[in-house]
């Protein structure tokens, strides 16, 4: 918690004959983060991949091509393949699959091409429906030129001026006038000119086919139908292949990936003609395991050494370490940046503050329950990965939202407990609210804006102060206390001093009474703030004064906790008022204006709350996260660590 896992640097050395055993032992353990060997020297060079590497990657390539052609999607495994049986099957099955699949996909592509061809012909033939000629009558003349095309105007007078020796056919296709003009070739130039002057003239190409257009069209359509049937048949064959082999393909993909990974591992080692050296990092608590396993499997032929010499912290891989409930929140940390080795990992803090901010914003029993159910559904659907982590985060936030829903007394925007509004009692669903620990529920959000605004600002001050404290610690560890005081201590003083001064100044200014300069809190705050500013200028230069206002805007930014909540509660209230007072219960009488209007009211209720719910997941989520990233993290977080990526594989479809 709070700190990344402690790492130990390990160097493993041995002779080449036990390299394979070492690799497979390490791969199975899945704990060693290998540092790639890059600097070649006379004695040590980068290792060569093991023999089967090229074979495996070739298989993998063809397998992935097949899986692409079949469109196989990742899914949760139904059963696991033993990796004993897979090696014997891989060669044979991949060859058959390749034959079956590629011949079919080739045919599919050919068919698609032919369908396209035929469809183009169909659309070329259609315009000629408007003219009374067979298609072969349009071409093949030696002395006659044919002009088929669309035109809006009557060209006959123009043509007859050029020659009397012509034939003109006219008709209509899809409400456009179509014509075909036959003239002797000697007049080609003149006719061409005449047509070009007509703006509405559009030339059409005659497809080189024989027969009457309707008959040709009929034939073409039949051909297309036949082709489509064949296409569908092949598709369904491919589907059945996909169904039969998809488990195998995924298992084989995993098996081959693992084998390729193992075979290519020596590329990361330093090797001499007869020996190899692996350099890497192991979580310190796992070192004994890796040592005993390696010695056991190689018969003590391998040498391990823990290196204690100081290394650059930047080389150490980072694995975040948090107890179960806070684990999903590592996702939010890693999305921002991976911390450095000596930095605080804030996942445990975010585990508390993120759901808290979310809940204060959403704060509705009904919405909380629905979001919780949605989170549970997603959690059950995705057992691992980012979506699982996200659903756990959402679940926690939603449960807390229900708690705040009780405090605010809101259920889909309806009052849960009785409350007073402008002197009148509004009756809640559960009647009078209970008093818990001297706190009389509900604390309604619209009634207590001033109080809640103050609370959110206090939350902001505490949160930012916490960020500065963590930043102080980070700098003290990385540099020294002096630096920490200049860089973070100064800000803490300014924050506390500023808050103390403003808490006294504001009431005085509001009531227009004289500023109580002699007040010890005000004076102390001012002095503390000024000392802070002086420290800041000494540590970071005069330019840092420009950053002072950001502190104020950071604190004010927390007022969004109230604002987002109020807007969500406001929308809910508006929807409820609209639906209840106008449709379902006009003038205080249920179904006062008939059942149909009441039903319309129910629809309004449903749609309104659905929209508000969607906004209610997105808004509080993003803004709560933003407060962490922008206001909190910037006070201490640098990030830039290397993520711990152990040599190994998390098997999903196969087992050893």
């Amino acid at each position, binding site marked *: 918690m709070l700190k990344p896992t402690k790492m130990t640097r390990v160097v493993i050395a041995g002779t080449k004959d036990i390299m394979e055993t070492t690799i497979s032992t390490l791969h199975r353990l899945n704990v060693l983060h290998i540092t790639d060997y890059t600097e070649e020297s006379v004695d040590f060079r980068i290792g060569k991949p093991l023999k089967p590497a090229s074979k495996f990657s070739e298989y993998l390539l063809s397998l992935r091509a097949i899986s692409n052609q079949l469109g196989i999607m990742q899914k949760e495994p139904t059963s696991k393949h033993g990796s004993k049986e897979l090696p014997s099957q891989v060669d044979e099955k991949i060859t058959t699959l390749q034959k079956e699949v590629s011949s079919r996909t080739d045919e599919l592509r050919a068919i698609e091409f032919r369908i396209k061809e035929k469809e183009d012909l169909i659309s070329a033939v259609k315009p000629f429906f408007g003219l009374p000629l067979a298609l072969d009558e349009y071409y093949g003349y030696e002395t006659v030129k044919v002009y088929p095309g669309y035109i809006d105007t009557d060209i006959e007078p123009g043509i007859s001026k050029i020659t009397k020796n012509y034939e003109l056919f006219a008709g209509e296709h899809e409400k456009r006038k179509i014509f075909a003009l036959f003239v002797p070739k000697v007049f080609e130039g003149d006719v061409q000119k005449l047509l070009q002057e007509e703006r509405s003239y559009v030339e059409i190409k005659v497809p080189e086919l024989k027969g009457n257009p309707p008959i040709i069209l009929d034939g073409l359509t039949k051909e297309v139908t036949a082709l489509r049937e064949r296409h569908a048949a092949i598709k369904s064959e491919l589907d059945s292949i996909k169904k039969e082999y998809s488990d195998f393909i995924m298992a084989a993909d995993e098996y081959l990936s693992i084998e390729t990974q193992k075979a290519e591992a020596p590329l990361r080692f330093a090797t001499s003609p007869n020996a190899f050296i692996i350099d890497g990092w192991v979580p310190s608590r796992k070192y004994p395991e890796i040592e005993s396993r390696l010695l056991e499997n190689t018969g003590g032929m391998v040498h391990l050494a823990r290196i204690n010499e100081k290394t650059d912290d930047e080389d150490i891989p980072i694995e975040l370490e948090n107890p179960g409930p806070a684990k999903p929140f590592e996702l939010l940390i890693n999305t921002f940046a991976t911390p450095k080795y000596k930095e605080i990992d804030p996942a445990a803090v975010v585990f508390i503050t993120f759901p808290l901010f979310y809940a204060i914003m959403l704060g509705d029993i009904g919405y909380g329950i629905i979001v919780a159910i949605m989170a549970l559904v997603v959690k059950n659907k995705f057992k691992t990965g980012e979506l699982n982590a996200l659903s756990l985060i959402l679940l926690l936030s939603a449960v807390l939202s229900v708690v705040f829903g009780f405090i605010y007394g809101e259920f889909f925007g309806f009052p849960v407990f009785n409350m007073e509004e402008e002197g009148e009692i509004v009756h809640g669903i559960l009647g009078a609210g209970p008093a818990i620990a001297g706190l009389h529920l509900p604390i309604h959000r619209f009634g207590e804006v*001033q109080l809640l*605004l103050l609370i959110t600002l206090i939350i902001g001050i505490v949160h930012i102060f916490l960020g500065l404290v963590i930043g102080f610690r980070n700098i003290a560890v990385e540099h020294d206390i002096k630096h920490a005081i200049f860089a973070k201590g100064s800000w803490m003083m300014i924050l506390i001093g500023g808050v103390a001064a403003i808490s006294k100044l504001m009431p005085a200014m509001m009531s227009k009474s004289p500023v109580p300069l002699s007040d010890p809190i005000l004076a102390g705050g001012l002095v503390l703030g000024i000392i802070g500013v002086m420290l800041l200028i000494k540590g970071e230069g005069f330019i840092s004064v420009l950053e002072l206002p950001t502190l104020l805007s950071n604190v004010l930014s927390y007022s969004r906790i109230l*604002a987002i909540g*109020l807007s969500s509660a406001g929308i809910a209230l508006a929807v409820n008022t609209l639906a209840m007072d106008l449709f379902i219960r006009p003038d205080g009488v249920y179904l006062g204006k008939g059942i149909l209007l009441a039903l319309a009211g129910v629809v309004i209720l449903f749609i309104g709350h659905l929209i508000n719910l969607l906004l209610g997941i997105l808004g509080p989520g*993003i*803004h709560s*996260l*933003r407060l962490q990233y922008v206001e909190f993290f910037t006070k201490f977080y640098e990030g830039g660590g290397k993520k711990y990526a152990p040599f190994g594989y998390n098997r999903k479809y196969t087992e050893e």
Partner: protein
Amino acid sequence: MVDPTQAGMVALGAGIAVGLAGIGAGMGEQAIGAAAVGAMAEDEKFFGKGLLMTVIPESIAIFGLVVALILLFVF
């Protein structure tokens, strides 16, 4: 307390605060939003970061809202 005859002015002020702040936030967000969508077109992994960047100017709108709330409820 505000003079009852001036209560409308408070409401107007609140409306102007929210409205202008919203316009400002929108102007800020349009550039970021466009850039975020562009980044997402290159690589879908930018969705989270893009969404976050896009809401950063939303602070301005929230400041406006807070001013309006103070006007309506505190004064």
